[in-house]
């Protein structure tokens, strides 16, 4: 959220208040005033007042009357201090401590489809290891003709590929099977990011080792303290699994697996093993902890799905949302993100009445395989309450289900893969609340 000037805010409130009942107006003004106080606290309190008095037209602002810092004052650049509130956040009570835990990306503040490296959601099971790339090795063995060990230098000699792919934790939204309880987009959908990943197709590396005909599965293993391990069928590996060392133009961040990780495009994030150190080829899956005790989907009848790899089509509206309330009646671009693990997003529909009636939205910008895709719907808001929903469908014809449909099929104890249509309640004040419609 950018910091609006006081004048702008007062104008906004006055405009909006005209559409409100007397009671609503009192409430909105109270909130508006506290928002101003909050805005001042974001910058330094002293300069906020100074800005108002001297930095607006017709005055020449302070930054136009003095010099700024020179080159390499920040050898590795960081965002403006006015954007300091845009960062990953966690919900501490979800996990016992921070070493084996998760944080969410600030989706409400992100633009386009690429997640900046410092804002990609985090998920660790034994914290972030500090790996010296010179001492990192990738071992490939098992049902192969030539077991091999690669250095990072070896891996970076292979012809590289760069692909834009989303990565999503299958527990994204998993806190809301029973009811809504996350009061912000960052917490309802933030276990989701999208980067340009650079590396080598795993198939190329397996060809070097020579997979034997009985080789039907691989085990991918991390080198961190968790030694996270997942079984992946060979068909996926031959299709599009990547071994990557870079994201968004620079080497992987330590949080994202530096110096090497797997990317299984469109599949649950847990399979994209970070700090990758070993690939074993076998004839059967291993049924390790992360594919039995965890990352299996318990159904109402007590049975459980396993190897639920694909992230099915999903979408969410990012403007408006709890963090981005509607500040002013009039034109609004309803915007959001859609994604599917089965290929490309074909379209997104928008509902303003909680799913009774739908209208098609426009896809905008790049529409890529297994990547976040932006959608947009331009309309006017005149202060009326909305029950805003988005519904994505993909090129396979799969349509994002309603919460009722998912619950009917799976019950409420699945934890993972909750991709149901999400509802934001836009109140007459412009505030946005997380609600569920069944």
């Amino acid at each position, binding site marked *: 959220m950018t910091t609006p000037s006081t004048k702008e805010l007062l104008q906004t409130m006055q405009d909006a208040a005209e559409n409100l009942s007397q009671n609503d107006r009192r409430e909105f003004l109270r909130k508006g005033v506290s928002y101003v*106080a*909050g805005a001042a606290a974001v910058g330094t309190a002293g300069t906020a007042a100074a800005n108002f008095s001297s930095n607006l037209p017709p005055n020449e602002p302070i930054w136009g009357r003095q010099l700024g810092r020179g080159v390499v004052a920040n050898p590795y650049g960081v965002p403006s201090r006015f954007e300091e*509130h845009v960062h990953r*956040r966690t*919900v*501490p*009570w979800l996990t*016992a*401590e*921070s070493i084996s*835990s998760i944080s969410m990306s600030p989706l409400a503040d992100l633009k386009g489809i690429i997640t900046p490296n410092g804002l990609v959601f985090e998920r660790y099971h034994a*914290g972030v290891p500090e790996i010296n790339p010179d001492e990192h090795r990738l*071992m*490939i*063995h098992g049902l192969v003709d030539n*077991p091999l060990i690669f250095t990072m230098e*070896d891996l970076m*000699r*292979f012809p590289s590929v760069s692909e834009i792919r989303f990565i999503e934790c299958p527990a994204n939204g998993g806190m809301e099977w029973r009811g*809504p309880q*996350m*009061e912000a987009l960052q*917490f309802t959908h933030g276990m989701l990011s999208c980067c340009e990943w650079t590396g080598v197709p795993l198939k190329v590396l397996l*060809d*070097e080792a020579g997979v034997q005909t009985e080789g039907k599965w691989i085990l991918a293993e991390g080198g961190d303290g968790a*030694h996270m*391990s997942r079984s992946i069928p060979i068909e996926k590996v031959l299709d599009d699994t990547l071994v990557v060392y870079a994201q968004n133009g620079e080497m992987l961040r330590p949080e994202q697996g530096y110096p090497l990780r797997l990317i299984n495009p469109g599949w649950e994030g847990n399979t994209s093993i970070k700090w990758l*150190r*070993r690939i074993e080829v076998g004839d059967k899956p*291993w*049924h*390790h*902890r992360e594919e*039995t*005790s965890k990352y299996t989907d*318990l159904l109402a009848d007590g049975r*459980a*799905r*396993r*190897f*639920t790899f*694909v992230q099915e089509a999903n979408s969410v509206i990012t403007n408006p949302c709890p*963090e981005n309330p509607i500040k002013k009646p009039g034109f609004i671009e309803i915007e959001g993100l859609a994604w599917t693990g089965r290929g490309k997003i074909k379209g997104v*529909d928008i509902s303003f*009445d*909680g799913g*009774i009636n*739908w209208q098609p939205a426009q896809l905008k910008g790049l529409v890529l395989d297994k990547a976040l895709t932006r959608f947009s719907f331009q309309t006017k808001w005149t202060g009326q309450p909305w029950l805003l929903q988005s519904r994505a*469908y993909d090129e396979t014809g*799969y*349509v994002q*289900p*309603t919460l009722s*449909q998912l619950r009917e099929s799976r019950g409420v104890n699945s934890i993972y*893969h909750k991709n149901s249509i999400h509802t934001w*309640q836009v109140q007459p004040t412009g505030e946005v*609340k997380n*609600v*569920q419609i*069944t």
Partner: protein
Amino acid sequence: MFKLPNVFAATLLGAALVAGTAQADGHKYGFGAPASAEEIAGWDIDIRPDGLGLPVGSGNAMDGEAEYEALCAACHGVFGEGEGRWPVLAGGEGTLTDERPIKTVGSYWPYTSTLFDYIRRSMPFPAPMSLTDQQVYNITAYVLYLNEIIEEDFELSNENLATIRLPNEENFFVDDRPDAKNPRCMADCLNPDEMMLAASLSGVTPIGHFVEGADAPAGSHEAQHELEAQKEAERKAEITGEEVQADHGDAAPAALSEAAQAGESVYNGACAVCHGSGLAGAPKVGDSAAWVDRIAQGNDVMIQNALQGFAGSTGVMPPKGGRMDLSDEAVTNAVHFMAETSR
């Protein structure tokens, strides 16, 4: 004029020949070194349900009890019931269709091998890969015993582990999604009279950053732990009538010795995992009540325990906290830092 294109053509031809060689060799680049049997053996730690990968050896629950209590119970509870938010390991049979299923080794896990594999690769949490195969067999046997899968004196071995079946094995099936089908209806899709709207619970998500005055819970685990400790102190104070003790962090920090200053970064990188949260019974830095007796033993004892490891009724610490990469000096400095900031 005439020579240059010739040279150029020769270069191209050479490149084509090289590329042709690579093609003929089945796209092989020849990068990477052969992995020796010894190198593979060191890293090949995975176990499969059919027992493939199990090291030769055995163990039993009677021998595992003491090891479990020393190494595992701090988080998983003496009976596998779980402490705080740490995983529950035992019990929960018949709860999978309940409103709140309890998913444990006995009630949910499909294979015994997973238990051995996971303990070996990831546990104990603060010091993964520190257990001997014997310890892994013993602790695996003990957890199976807690779940009433095997008897206390059953000798679990590489010969019989794959034959120990868990009760829930048959209840898993391979992904058959898409399951929920939603036709792409555009108009009058729901009956407004039957629609139910549920509002969010408030106060369970940290939203203080955009809702002024929101009664938001803590935004970090550290703050959450402090909040819970504070609530617990207040609860106890209500029962005992004693006043809640002032937070130790409020006191002005005393000047740190040179060793302690050097130890701060070591502490942050290696020790804070346990000593920041109290994991595995570790005394929390800044908690003077937890440190007073330890400090009274003298620096030499504390340093000796940190370097050599410590297992007692109060907690467990592997040598150097499992960070064998740290020098003795670095660990010693970290001890000074922790002791001096916990007086």
